[in-house]
């Protein structure tokens, strides 16, 4: 909310400096967003008089002026304004002044061969309006030589504060003044003094306007007064100047009065042109499909939940949010109805949200205006109208009741210490509360002022006391600390995540964070998502991802478009599924993707190498191992899903159902859908499926390295071509569990010497003797067992 320093001082009798006021505003929770003094931009601009005006010798459209800047030394100025003439009093920018509109520094210069010292300014050049047809013309008696900012009353800092949603009372200058007075920065002037109202009420004549409320839920109170015989010209200068200073364009006297009262007192009003109404006004629920052309020029279609003000024929106001164009006041308006109503905050909020319509009135009503201020608000408005537009006021019609039940709560002043940690003297607490408008009983029963809808418990009173007393008095108090060093806090899942992340980075993968939502098309390419947003920000961000692959593919594609030759990306994040009970089932997953040149061209071997499925498998195994998965027990199976090349992908499982990882070459059509080319390999590790390690203490299983050296034996088997190598290796390894400690495939061969439909697999078997070396017989028996095991898979020892 914006206001000027002088405006604030209408309500607050203070000699505090601007600096003190700004600090106090921040301290009490009215955050200063900005402060600007328009006069600072006007340095070097003076009231000056044109003494002579002659034609420029070289240019038809220019004149050469002699300008008196007030110091008795007239200056020669070249000017292009058609209205420049001898005798004109205007605004002159001296050499060195900076033109507010364009930042130009005024310098002595020759214009078409004639020397010019400074500039006579237009309204637009000084950012005072849009007019640029000529230079500013001031009244002839304007004091030549004085600073223009002083003359125009611009030396008045504009303060912009942000108001938290609970403080409707500070959405009027008076509320801000009240808070500052409570802080001890001065005293609050009586309202009648601020408005220079004479002691007597405005004389009234005749019955009040015909208004009623049929919707006491949305509009509990509708107070109104008519004024007949008004002249709606321009607002008084003091009012227009205040409104202009905060960026509100003056419109007409009646409209400006409603805007002024709203900003000054936080009390929105509406004025109807009585001539444009047929019959009385009623606050009622809108009919479904009813339309209204609002003052912003847009037509809104209403529904039955919205409160409107209507006459017999039309809707004239979206209650508490925006008036209608049809019954708005104009220059020709003579008779008006002034509305001062109370709209229920929740209704206003809902209607405003549904219509997507914000306004200054809505902001105030939806936060809850002072329900006890209808009569006074209306009286002030009527006073201003009769004072500045003339006319005769009617009596006041009061339809409904705003509901001003007194609200009390019992407070204990020691709460300030126990909740805020700051000891504030009870007497000081009482003073603070009373200055804020609370009434405090001897027994600390606190009556809440009608304008403080936000106060509903003792903690709120603590907040009031502490914010005025000063939060800087809250002492920094250490939290109690458990004895000893800090205890570990990470959960097993957090440890898995951390280890997987750092292992991936150590293996040369770069961690990205991709959006959790993807497009429907992308989701469909990985099997479809369970959760689709009702109100996505774009079609690209609509479905909660069931896979990390689309995000990685998009990121890879962006990098390739930027000229990357190698992409190695990973992400740790959740995949989103729906549990059977409708709740969210979010599974922590590590996705990785590698594309481009696995190794760049090099002087050693010339060609760049592409990735293959085993690169993805290697990453998957290494990262699972780092994350603590029992890698030696994993089964290698297929069915990695449609995202992968059907023949170059696989899964790693712990038991047939628990998939810990999928990996492989991505399906060429998926790669193409993301505008990528070449072989792209990827993997997903399902971190949530990794079993947590059982806590067994720090002691390792006892171990001493065997005394005797291990021996190796090589076996080559001819096996059916479709036999998976892993099953042969596992079988061989299991052939003699006592002696065989490892089996490793070291050759795969098809071709010359190997029958079609078969292949040769060579396995190196490691044998670990116990306390005695193997005899020839023992080695023969182990070999026989290995061969026999391989035979069960259809393998024969290669001769």
């Amino acid at each position: 909310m914006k206001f000027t320093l002088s405006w604030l001082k209408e309500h607050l009798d203070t000699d505090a400096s601007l600096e003190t006021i700004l600090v106090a505003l921040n301290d009490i929770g009215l955050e200063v967003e900005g402060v600007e003094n328009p006069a600072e931009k006007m340095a070097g601009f003076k009231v000056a008089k044109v003494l002579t005006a002659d034609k420029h010798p070289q240019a038809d459209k220019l004149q050469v002026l002699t300008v008196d800047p007030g110091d008795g030394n007239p200056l020669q100025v070249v000017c292009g304004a058609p209205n420049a003439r001898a005798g004109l009093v205007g605004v002159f920018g001296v050499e060195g002044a900076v033109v507010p509109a364009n930042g130009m520094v005024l310098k002595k210069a020759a214009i078409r061969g004639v020397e010019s010292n400074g500039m006579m300014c237009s309204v637009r050049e000084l950012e005072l309006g849009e007019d640029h047809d000529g230079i500013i013309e001031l009244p002839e008696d304007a004091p030549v030589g004085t600073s223009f900012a002083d003359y125009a009353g611009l030396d008045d800092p504009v303060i912009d504060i942000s108001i938290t949603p609970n403080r409707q009372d500070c959405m009027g200058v008076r509320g801000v003044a009240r808070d500052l007075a409570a802080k001890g920065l001065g005293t609050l002037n009586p309202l009648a003094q601020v408005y220079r109202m004479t002691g007597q009420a405005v004389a009234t004549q005749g019955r009040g306007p015909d208004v009623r409320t049929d919707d006491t839920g949305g509009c509990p109170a509708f107070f109104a007064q008519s004024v007949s015989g008004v002249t709606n010209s321009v607002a008084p200068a003091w009012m227009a100047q205040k409104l202009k200073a905060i960026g509100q364009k003056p419109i007409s006297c009646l409209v400006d009065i409603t805007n002024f009262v709203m900003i000054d007192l936080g009390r929105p009003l509406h004025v109807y042109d009585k001539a444009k109404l047929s019959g009385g006004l009623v606050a009622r629920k809108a009919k479904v499909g009813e339309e209204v052309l609002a003052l912003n020029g847009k037509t809104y279609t209403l529904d039955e939940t919205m409160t409107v003000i209507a006459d017999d024929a039309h809707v004239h106001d979206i209650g508490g949010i925006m008036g209608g164009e049809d019954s708005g006041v104009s220059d020709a308006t003579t008779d008006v109805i002034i509305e001062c109503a109370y709209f229920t905050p929740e209704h206003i909020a809902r209607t405003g949200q549904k219509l997507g319509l914000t306004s200054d009135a809505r902001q105030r009503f939806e936060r809850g205006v002072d329900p006890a201020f209808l009569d006074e608000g209306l009286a002030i408005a009527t006073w201003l109208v009769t004072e500045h537009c003339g006319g005769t006021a009617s009596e006041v019609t009061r339809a409904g009741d705003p509901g001003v039940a007194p609200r009390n709560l019992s407070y204990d002043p020691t709460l300030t210490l126990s909740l805020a940690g700051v000891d504030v003297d009870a007497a000081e607490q009482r003073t603070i509360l009373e200055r804020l408008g609370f009434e405090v009983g001897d027994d600390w029963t606190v009556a809440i002022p009608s304008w403080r809808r936000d106060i509903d418990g003792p903690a709120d009173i603590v907040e009031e006391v502490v914010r005025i007393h000063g939060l800087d008095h809250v002492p920094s108090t250490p939290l109690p600390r458990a004895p000893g060093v800090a205890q570990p806090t990470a959960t097993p899942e957090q440890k898995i995540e951390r280890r997987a992340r750092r292992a991936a980075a150590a293996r040369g993968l770069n961690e990205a964070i991709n959006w959790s939502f993807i497009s429907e098309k992308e989701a469909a390419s990985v099997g479809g998502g369970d959760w689709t947003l009702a109100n996505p920000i774009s079609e690209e961000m609509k479905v909660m991802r069931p896979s990390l692959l689309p995000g990685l593919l998009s990121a890879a594609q962006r990098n390739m478009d930027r000229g990357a030759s190698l992409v190695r990306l990973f992400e740790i994040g959740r995949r989103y599924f729906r549990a059977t009970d409708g709740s969210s089932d979010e599974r922590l997953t590590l996705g990785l993707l590698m594309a481009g040149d696995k190794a760049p061209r090099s002087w050693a071997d010339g060609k760049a190498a592409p990735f293959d499925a085993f690169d993805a498998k290697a990453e998957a195994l290494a990262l699972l191992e780092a994350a603590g998965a029992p890698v030696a027990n994993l089964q290698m199976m297929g069915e990695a899903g449609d995202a992968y090349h059907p023949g170059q992908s696989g899964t790693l499982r712990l038991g047939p159902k628990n998939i810990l990882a999928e990996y492989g070459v991505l399906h060429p059509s998926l790669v193409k859908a993301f505008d990528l080319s070449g072989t792209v390999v990827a993997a997903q590790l399902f971190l949530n499926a990794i079993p947590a390690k059982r806590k067994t203490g720090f002691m390792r299983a006892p171990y001493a390295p065997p005394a005797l050296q291990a021996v190796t034996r090589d076996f080559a088997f001819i096996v059916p071509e479709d036999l998976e190598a892993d099953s042969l290796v596992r079988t061989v390894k299991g052939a003699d569990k006592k002696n065989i400690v490892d089996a490793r495939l070291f050759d795969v061969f098809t071709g010359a010497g190997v029958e079609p439909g078969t292949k040769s697999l060579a396995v190196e078997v490691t044998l670990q003797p116990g306390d005695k070396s193997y005899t020839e017989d023992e080695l023969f028996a182990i070999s026989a067992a290995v061969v026999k095991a391989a035979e069960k898979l259809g393998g024969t020892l290669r001769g």
Partner: protein
Amino acid sequence: MTDIVALKAGLLADIGRADSLAQVEELRVGALGKQGAVTALLKTLGGMTPEERQSQGPVIHDLRESVTAAIADRKAALEQAALDEKLASEKLDMTLPVDIVPQGSVHPVSQVMDELAEIFADMGFAVATGPEIEDDWRNFTALNIPETHPARAMHDTFYFPDKDAEGCDMLLRTHTSPVQIRTMTSQEPPIRIIAPGRVYRSDSDATHTPMFHQIEGLVIDKGIHLGHLKWTLETFLKAFFERDDIVLRLRPSYFPFTEPSVEIDVGYTIEKGQRVIGGSGDAPDGGWMEVLGSGMVHRRVIENCGLNPDEWQGFAFGTGVDRLAMLKYGMNDLRAFFDGDLRWLRHYGFSALDVPTLSGGVGA
């Protein structure tokens, strides 16, 4: 006698002149082989009188030893020369580059989350998590956010058309605060947790992204007050920025789930055109910037979680993790956090070995 002297001189001269291992071997066979000249002399020893042997023996043995040593020396010298020549021929251009090993990196958001976990663990806070797809009770209602609060509007919050088993609207959590509710409804106080994670708001411009990261803190205990909150945040910020001159400014504010509510500003100074956290915001080159929202947990929130607010009270705070990362490490574009640009990731990312520790410092 003179024959032996002459033989020795001749043999040694020949060995010294030999310029190949083959020649040396030929000389060895000629001198020390079965038919060799020296061997022949050795054989004569057996037929000598003791007197002859006493005078001739040492001379002949000396001859044998000298020749043997000379052959070994010559052989070693020739081998060394051959090796030197071979090595000289194997010279490589050692300025040739080595193979490029790809350098991985940890995302700044992950790094900062690890830093936060480390700092808060020392203050006794565990890391709690919750789902990102939440119900409106935990995201709003339980946090004392009224039905008509603007944050609930479709233009701020992402909703799903689905409802959960209790009939609550499902949405993307707009803050990490629902983790407060999940913690208080599932765990007996005293509670000290932080809850970092992804949050979502329907907002996208130069400084806002529809997805970002927050961290929430919650302490529920007996006798906890605003002073503890102030100390906790002061201590945290000092540890995080590794500066002792952190100055906080507390400003009254408003959040539906805390009362009193306090906004936390931290002082900064401008150094080389960048805001650097530290010092008083009121200093000549200084300013204040909002870094955290916080307050004492509203008694209605405590009640909503089934706890007795007359017995338990505490504080909560929240801030943006991305923002903390930006303030500490100097990135200035939030959108780049979620773009996956490898150049950016390599520049602003962290090494796998930069594990934050208290002894090594949490910053890297």
